[in-house]
């Protein structure tokens, strides 16, 4: 039972870490895009 639990937890942990990384990266990119668009808008005025 220990091996089975360890394998399932391990596999899901890897996928979860990757999904969390993607989520965090998405947040950073959206923030970066907003900042750039604002800066471009200010330059255009």
């Amino acid at each position: 039972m220990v091996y089975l639990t360890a394998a399932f937890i391990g596999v899901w942990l890897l996928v979860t870490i990757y999904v969390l990384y993607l989520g965090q990266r998405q947040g950073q990119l959206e923030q970066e895009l907003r900042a750039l668009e604002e800066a471009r808008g200010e330059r255009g005025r």
Partner: protein
Amino acid sequence: MSTSTLTATTRPTTQRSSHVGWLILSLLTAITMAALMGAALLYAKPALNLAGDEQMAQRIFYIHIGSVIGCFVAFLMSLIGSIVYLNKRNLDWDRVAQASVEIGIVLGMSTTLAGSIWSKPTWNTYWTWDPRLTTTTITLLIYIAYLLFRNGIDNRYTRARFSSIYALFAFLSVPLTYYSARWFRSIHPIVFNGANPDAQGSFNIGETMSQTLWVATIGYCLLFSTLLIFRWRQLRLQDRIDALREEME
């Protein structure tokens, strides 16, 4: 640099419907993966030729095979993306290749981890330099090197061209890994199309096992597709930001 290939076209209706499509796909993935967990742990009958820890650990097989199928599909997709990029020079296909490699590595690591834990009660060791395990490690290292190699090139188009060529050669390690347990003396069980007389820990597949295996195959393919679409869009957004930054400089 061609802005049309780098920036996302603004089509709110299309974007909204594709976002809804992705959400439905994510939901389907979650349902299938939950079904896989239920089937692997409860529905599939235990292997009658095994006992104790080995019998219980046999259930790891479903996530191990699911991950390896997902990993294979991912690396195959990276090959397709690279071939199409080299033909069409459309960066969207390079993004497909990059996203596929990333997901393939995650699923490949899952495969190795699950296999390694399964091998302890079965082979009495977490790791052995068996041909299948060795070629799997080499394949993963080759694809990790692909990502490192990409990061070393600044120009977007040069990076895409060289990465695509690299991915073509990298894929050669995939069939080598698949056939390693058939071509060389290996203790790794052969599940599909053949038997391995040297295998330790082999098992016959019954009806409930086969059905669970199908759920695993579908679940992992859906997981790959969901992650691929998300990461592909993210890489597109990244390029859009880079293009904006270049425009402002």
